[in-house]
Structures are given as structure tokens and as C-alpha cells.
């Protein structure tokens, strides 16, 4: 009975057409993000004022206006260098996470494998990624491969750790229940362990989404002739600061877009909340 009122109200909103509801959502979202939007605009304004007020030379720190102009002047260069970085980041994201998830599944079913290979994963993780880049260039050449590997490596470790934890998060009572139902190992995996690990997996994927872009850019610093990373190096050496800033903005936007893509997928796939029984 308590549910009757809200559901009726919802029904009426639906019959009035979804247009109003959409407007409502947009207005609501704007209102909710208003403080953040104002703060960001304030920072940009302050930046421009400082650059003007202290007459900072453009090569040292360009103002927002210079950066916006750089976007227009260098649209072609930015565009052609954006695609390779996007490809590397996305492919690295996919490979790194797929390998991490498969390894986590293996670790959960084979404690021996976990004891043998977990330390190796930690050792690989502890090598600074920037030191690994030249080694990989020597190993696999200067193509797209070392960039994908580095973007993948950077995603790999958080996903491995979270996925192992997620697959082990099934409660002992839940596993007892499955045993009483005479469930097979694969039934336990598909019906209990894997769905239960999804919140853990997505927490890692959100980290991986932003760090894969970082991995790709760092890899492009080592003797690459294309990509946002290469553009950053080139713009720095030639004192083309507005272009440098524009590249950084593009790189950051790419990371943000990937992050929200993963968040969106999460909101579509994980539509439940864990229940606490006590």
C-alpha cells in the first residue's frame, strides 16, 4: 500500500510524455553540477587574469585564449595524433584487463598458481613504467606494439588484484548453499562468483580507463613520431606552448571520456546493491 502513491505519480508522468521528464533530468543535472561548473570557469578566468596581469610570456604559460586559438590552428595535427593514442589506449585497456581477468580466474581455482605467479605480477608492477618503455622499444620495435603493451601493463595489476578479491568475495554460506544444491564448479562460477565479482572488476576498470591513456602517452615519449605523447614532446622542444596545452587538454578529455564510458557500462550491468544481512 505504501508503494501505491509514488508508482501512480510515475505513471502519470509517463502518460504526459517523456519530453518533460527529459527536460527535468537535464535541468536537474545542470543544477546538480552547477557548483563544479562555476568553480572550473572561475579557475579558467583566474588563469587568464594572471597571464594578463603579470604579462607572462606565451612560451612560458599561455592563457586560455591562446590555447583555444591553438585548437583552431592545429586542429588537423591534433586530430591525426589523437587516433593512434586512442587506439593504443583502448587496445591496451582490452588486452591488459582480459589477461588480468583470466589470470585471476586461474588464481582463484589454483592456489598453487597464485603462490607461484602473484610475486611475479608484483615485481612487474614495481618496475617504473617509464623505465620499461625503452626496454620494450628495443624488444618489439618502435611500432604500435610497445605502446599497447605499456597501456596494458598499467591496467593489468589493479584489475588482477581486484578481480581475485571479487571472485573470492562469495560468502561461505552462499557456497554451502550451492554445495547443498549439488551445483557443479562451473555453475558456482557463472551463477555466484562471476556476478559477485563485477563491482570489484568495475572499480578496477575505472582506474584502468584513465591510466591506459597515461600508459599510451608515456610510451609515445620514447622515440615515437606520432600520437599525443609525441606531440607533447615536439611542442615542448619547439616552445609551442599553446599547442602543448591543447594536447594536454585533449589527452585529459580522452581519459575522462573513457572513464565515463566504463561508468556507463557499469550502471547498465551492475544494477543491484549488495545486501547486508546483519
Amino acid at each position, binding site marked *: 500500500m505504501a508503494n501505491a502513491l509514488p508508482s501512480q505519480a510515475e505513471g502519470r508522468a509517463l502518460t504526459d510524455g517523456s519530453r518533460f521528464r527529459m527536460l527535468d533530468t537535464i535541468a536537474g543535472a545542470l543544477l546538480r553540477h552547477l557548483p563544479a561548473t562555476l568553480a572550473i570557469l572561475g579557475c579558467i578566468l583566474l588563469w587568464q587574469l594572471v597571464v594578463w596581469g603579470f604579462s607572462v610570456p606565451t612560451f612560458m604559460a599561455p592563457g586560455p585564449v591562446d590555447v583555444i586559438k591553438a585548437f583552431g590552428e592545429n586542429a588537423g595535427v591534433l586530430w591525426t595524433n589523437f587516433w593512434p593514442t586512442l587506439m593504443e589506449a583502448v587496445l591496451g585497456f582490452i588486452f591488459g584487463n582480459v589477461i588480468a581477468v583470466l589470470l585471476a580466474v586461474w588464481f582463484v581455482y589454483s592456489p598453487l598458481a597464485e603462490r607461484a605467479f602473484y610475486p611475479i605480477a608484483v615485481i612487474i608492477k614495481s618496475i617504473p613504467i617509464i623505465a620499461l618503455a625503452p626496454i620494450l622499444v628495443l624488444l618489439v620495435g618502435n611500432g604500435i606494439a610497445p605502446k599497447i603493451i605499456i597501456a596494458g601493463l598499467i591496467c593489468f595489476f589493479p584489475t588482477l588484484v581486484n578481480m581475485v578479491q571479487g571472485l573470492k568475495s562469495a*560468502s561461505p*554460506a*552462499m557456497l*554451502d*548453499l*550451492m*554445495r*547443498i*544444491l*549439488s*551445483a*557443479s564448479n562451473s*555453475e558456482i562460477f557463472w*551463477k*555466484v562468483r562471476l*556476478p559477485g565479482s563485477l563491482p570489484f572488476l568495475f572499480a578496477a576498470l575505472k582506474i584502468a580507463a584513465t591510466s591506459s591513456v597515461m600508459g599510451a602517452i608515456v610510451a609515445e615519449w620514447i622515440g615515437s613520431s606520432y600520437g599525443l605523447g609525441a606531440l607533447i614532446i615536439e611542442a615542448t622542444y619547439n616552445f609551442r606552448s599553446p599547442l602543448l596545452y591543447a594536447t594536454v587538454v585533449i589527452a585529459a578529455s580522452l581519459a575522462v571520456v573513457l572513464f565515463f564510458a566504463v561508468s556507463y557500462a557499469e550502471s547498465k550491468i*551492475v*544494477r*543491484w*546493491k*549488495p*545486501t547486508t*544481512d*546483519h
Partner: protein
Amino acid sequence: MLETLNRASQAQAGNSAVSVKNLHIRFGADDSGFTALSDVSVEIPAGSLVTMLGPSGCGKSTLLRTVADLVHITDGSVSVHGQTPRKAREGRDFAFVFQEATLLPWRNVIDNVRLPLLVGKREAGATYADPEELLALVGLKGREKAMPHELSGGQRQRVAIARALVTRPRILLMDEPFGALDEITRDKLNEELLRLWQETGTTILFVTHSIPEAVFLGQHVLMLAAHPGRVKEFMKVDLPYPRSLAMRDTVEFIQVTAHLRKLLGEC
């Protein structure tokens, strides 16, 4: 003479849902391990409602879990309708209700109730209960599509009971199923469990910490003593069914609880 005795004991065995003989359960290695149950023998009559009571560490949960084939038998025997616990598990002879509802949070209520029909070996020709009817039976009609996090603790436990009944088990094993609930919810579920028991004729083995709960529900109370776990007393509760909550204020009820409380003090 011998033949009649045999027949009598067979009839006895056929009449008991669970038969435990000289059961010993030890956990861990020989010297560092500990004895959870020592020489436990008890017959649970088919169709009865037996509550198990005892201090912490008396092994009442272990006994229940042994019947459910979750604990390895060290010595002695457990037979469930004449079969080993393993065979009984594979034949879906019993179902288990835990203290936690153990619902899968990503499945809605009706899909959680259906879970036993989707996993494990399903015997051909076995008849299962209708999940929707069961939800109605536990008072959750209309909540089929609700997600577990939208339910209260008591409602989640009702779903767990419906899920347990979906395979039409002959025995229902319940390990402190209402232990985490508030008293009002608990009272209500106790009354409904009695109604369910009388409607379905299922044998129920019910572990609890609460003396009033044990007496209110139980046809028999199995009292275990601790260190090591052993049978202290297996007593019949001489209170008529149907029982109502008001019965708990009668002299007869209080006499039984007082007796059990005294026994518990000796354990």
C-alpha cells in the same frame, strides 16, 4: 523373535527422517584438533518439528551440517530416510536455511526462489513446487520482481524459506534462521513456520539459541551439552498444536522453559 525384532527396528528406521548413531565429529589433525560431537545418537521422527538447543560450542550447528553433508563424518553414522547424507543431498531430500538469507543480490525475488531448479542434477520426473505459489505461501505475493536490497531482513528470510521449499524437500534444516531478526519479526515468522509445517508435513530440524523459541516451535527439544558436544536430553514438549504466541504466557509453557533453563545451566 529375532525376526519380529528386526521388523520392529526396520519400522523404526522407516519412521525416522534422520537417524544418528554413535556419531563422532573431530576437526583438524589428531593432536591439535578438537572434538565437536562425541557419541551422539538420536532419532528424528518423520514429520516432526525438532528444535536443537545448547550452549555455544555444543555442536548443534555441526550436527545439522553433518546431516546436510557439509561436514565429514569421523565415526558413526547418519542416515537420512535410510540413505547417506550424500545420497540424500543428491536426491534433494533436504533443504537448508541459513542465518543469513544468502540471496543472490543480482537476481530478483522469484529468480532467487528458482535458483535450486537451475543448478545441480535435476532428476527426471521430479516434481517441483511452483515458485509463485511458494511466495504467496510465505506472504510475499506481488513482490516477485523486487530485488533483495529492496526487502527487509524478515522478508529476505521468507524468500530463503520459499527457495528451500521449491524442491519439495522431505526435511528442512534450519540453522538459527531468525537469529538476526528483531523480536517482533521473529515472533511473526515463528507462527508462520508452524503454519507451514502443518500445511506441508515437512520434517523440520531447527537450531536456535532461544529457549522460548525452541519450546514454542518444537514438538521435541534436543538439548546438547558442550565440550565435547553430546546429547543432554531429548524431550517431548507436551503442548498442543496449533500454538499461538499467547501460549507463551501460560504456566505450562513457563514450566517447560524453566526446566530447559535449568538443564542449560548444567551443560
